[in-house]
């Protein structure tokens, strides 16, 4: 219906010659909303049952949980990172790069050097793979996460300056000693939009873009991450997370409940604190009913993608050209197509514009966490989808970028790019101010 209505109104000057409306970033799952709530819309035309499931998931997503035993919303902790989904994913968007506060959205992964039996990171005894920096009252959190920034000013060719802040992360107040060295990796809560679409992109389409040995010699060597899925107990293509270390939305959601909030479910029934001094010894697992878990999974699966704005603006078009010329699109691929799925027509056979290849790339030492995660190396990060990126300041004022929110503006985010993206970053830095602004205006149209 959307397409029909738009075609009906079509003017030749407005839409591209191929008759396709390039505002529809999420295909049929696109929503025309550029307000602070723009990341919180359901796909349209969900059946009434699906709409009910989405709303149910929405309620749980924004619901605060409390310490067990409690008559309602019980099961938080005993160790956790936050008390509700929305406490990190504010307005379903990207979070705040702080740790330990009520609205903090940064968590810290932790592991020992080496790989485990499945090729993944090695859990730290007494800590697992994630630091829970909050605890039920009277219990000690696993650790305090300390973030410090050093600031340095740089210049573009034309003399305009910009500042980058480089973070350092350290743990203090450990509840138990860790022997030997350990690896840390910060992860900021990412936006929730379009996950169902990304899950529906065929593995073959993603893998087809991989070129791990850069055989084509273009300087871009994207690789698919293959990860052990804790629910299916199989190695699968990693799609979600900043290092593409999670294979599916259900695993992402169940793991977030378990690790971020301390809520057990039928698929992950063991408390994150099991075997630790904070463990509550209550026989209340699974704390989360399957209906609740599945509703939140469905909610995450059916959040629509906001439409682009100002796509016919001449400066935006110029910025798009420069984005191509800078070869940003080598990784931030504009277009993917979802597979045919008769069981879930809302995500079936959609041409989408996520601006990602869903592969991991070497981004250089500046951004490196030096903590491998399955096939993603210590300098590798998944190409972040850029759809919705222009709305970050509206949705999460003032908006933060990159895996740990170190970038406070899109300019900073671009200038942090290194490794395979170094040439594109250099291209941008050599542009005139008006052309740099055109690139930014293009990004802000996404």
């Amino acid at each position: 219906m959307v397409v029909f209505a738009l075609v009906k109104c079509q003017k030749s000057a407005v839409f591209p010659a191929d008759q396709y409306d390039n505002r529809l970033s999420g295909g049929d799952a696109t929503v025309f909303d550029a307000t602070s709530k723009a990341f919180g819309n359901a796909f349209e035309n969900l059946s009434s049952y699906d709409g009910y499931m989405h709303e149910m998931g929405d309620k749980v997503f924004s619901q605060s949980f409390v310490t067990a035993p409690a008559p309602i919303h019980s099961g938080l902790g005993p160790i956790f990172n936050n008390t509700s989904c929305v406490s990190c994913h504010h307005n379903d968007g990207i979070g705040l790069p702080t740790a330990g506060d009520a609205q903090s959205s940064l968590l810290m992964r932790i592991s020992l050097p080496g790989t485990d039996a499945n090729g993944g990171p090695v859990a730290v005894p007494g800590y697992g793979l994630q630091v829970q920096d909050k605890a039920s009252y009277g219990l000690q959190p696993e650790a305090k996460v300390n973030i410090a920034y050093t600031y340095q000013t740089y210049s573009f060719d034309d003399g305009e300056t910009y500042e980058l802040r480089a973070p350092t992360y350290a743990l203090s107040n450990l509840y138990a000693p860790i022997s030997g060295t350990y690896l840390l990796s910060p992860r900021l809560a990412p936006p929730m939009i379009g996950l169902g679409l990304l899950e529906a992109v065929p593995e073959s389409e993603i893998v087809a873009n991989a070129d791990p040995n850069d055989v084509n010699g273009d300087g871009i060597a994207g690789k698919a991450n293959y990860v052990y899925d804790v629910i299916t107990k199989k190695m699968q293509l990693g799609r979600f997370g900043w290092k593409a270390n999670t294979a599916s939305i259900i695993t992402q959601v169940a793991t977030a409940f378990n690790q971020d909030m301390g809520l057990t479910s039928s698929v992950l029934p063991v408390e994150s604190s099991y075997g630790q001094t904070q463990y509550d010894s209550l026989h209340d697992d699974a704390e989360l009913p399957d209906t609740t878990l599945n509703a939140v999974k469905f909610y995450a699966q059916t959040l629509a993608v906001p439409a682009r704005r100002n796509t016919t603006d001449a400066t935006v078009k110029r910025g798009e050209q420069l984005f191509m010329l800078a070869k940003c699109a080598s990784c931030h691929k504009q277009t993917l197509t979802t597979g045919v799925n008769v069981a879930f027509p809302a995500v079936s056979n959609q041409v989408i514009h996520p601006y990602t290849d869903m592969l991991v790339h070497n981004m250089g030492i500046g951004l490196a966490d030096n903590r491998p995660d399955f096939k993603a190396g210590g300098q590798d990060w998944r190409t972040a989808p850029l759809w919705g990126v222009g709305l970050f300041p509206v949705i999460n004022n003032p908006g933060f970028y990159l895996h740990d929110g170190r970038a406070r503006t899109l300019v900073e985010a671009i200038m942090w790019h290194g490794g395979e993206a170094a040439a594109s970053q250099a291209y941008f830095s050599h542009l005139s101010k008006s052309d740099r602004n055109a690139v930014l205006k293009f990004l802000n149209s996404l």
Partner: protein
Amino acid sequence: MRGKFLITLSVIGLAIAGCKKDNANNSSGNTSAQATLEQQVLTDFAGNLANPNYQDIQANALVMNNAIIAFNTNPTDNNLAAIRTAWKNTRAAWEKCEGFLFGPVEDFNYDPTMDDWPVNKADLDNVLASNNPLQVSDIDQLGTTLKGFHAIEYIIFGVGSTQKAANITDRDKLYLASLGQSLYNTTVQLRNSWDPAQANNFTAEVINAGNGSTRYTSRLDVFTALVGSMADICNEVANEKMQTPLAAQDSTLDESSFSHNSVNDFKNNITGILNAYKCQYPGAASGHSLSELVASKNASLDLKIQSQINTAIASFSSITTTYEKAIYTQQNQVKTVQNAINTLKVTLEGDLSAFIQTNIKD
């Protein structure tokens, strides 16, 4: 966080905006008179509604804080009743501002800081049993389910509104004093965030929309946020706050169950929509309003919206008991209220959103 209705209707609205040029009722040309009115509506929204509403929350929170101090000095049931009255008054002003929940209240998480739910009773008991000094700085370190309106509500009303002054311990009093001060401090931050006399205030962002505002590049952006927030609170009240305990037949899922204040909460939320639409707040001068703007182009739509808001507000009078009881004994009345609010929601997301998109061009 947002229903699917908006999407369909706003897309249709957009399509209409693109197709229709010269409809008499929906003229898309923007005269300077209309631009002036649009600007006046935004200026008065900030000056005659948002600022007075946030000032009122702060003023009532101060009264509550003083009532807590008086109670702690002289812990009588009368003084406890005074805190309860002040809590309900502060709550009323707060729930009204939820009729337009955008800007600093969401940007800086003042909402969850003051109004998270449910209370974490297991932790709260442990806080009271501990040797935590319970100073304001200690309260600020606690999670949001251990402070704000509902933690105060739990102490001053108790489960089933059965609390007595004599049962409030010295530790309770210490905690209550800091909870009251902490809540007041947050209301000051919220009020200051809009105060035109403060640096980087949000009033300037609204009234300079499209003219230097860093937040809003057009007046349309503010109107869209405003109308969206009005519709969102309809959804939250009818389909979440009212529906969840009703569907589960479980009064513990009712937000203000300790105080039995939920019906007032709901009604004040919808009154907040009326205030936002008419640009009015008790004790403040009324201003140029969204209603006036709609009426200038489409008088029948304005009347329809006003009528639906008033019908929704009036429908609450059919619930004659606490919401905790009404979900069992007055289900038809509850559903009547929900239907009235959802009717309004459809109009706000449909007709009013389309009106805004069609008529506000800058």
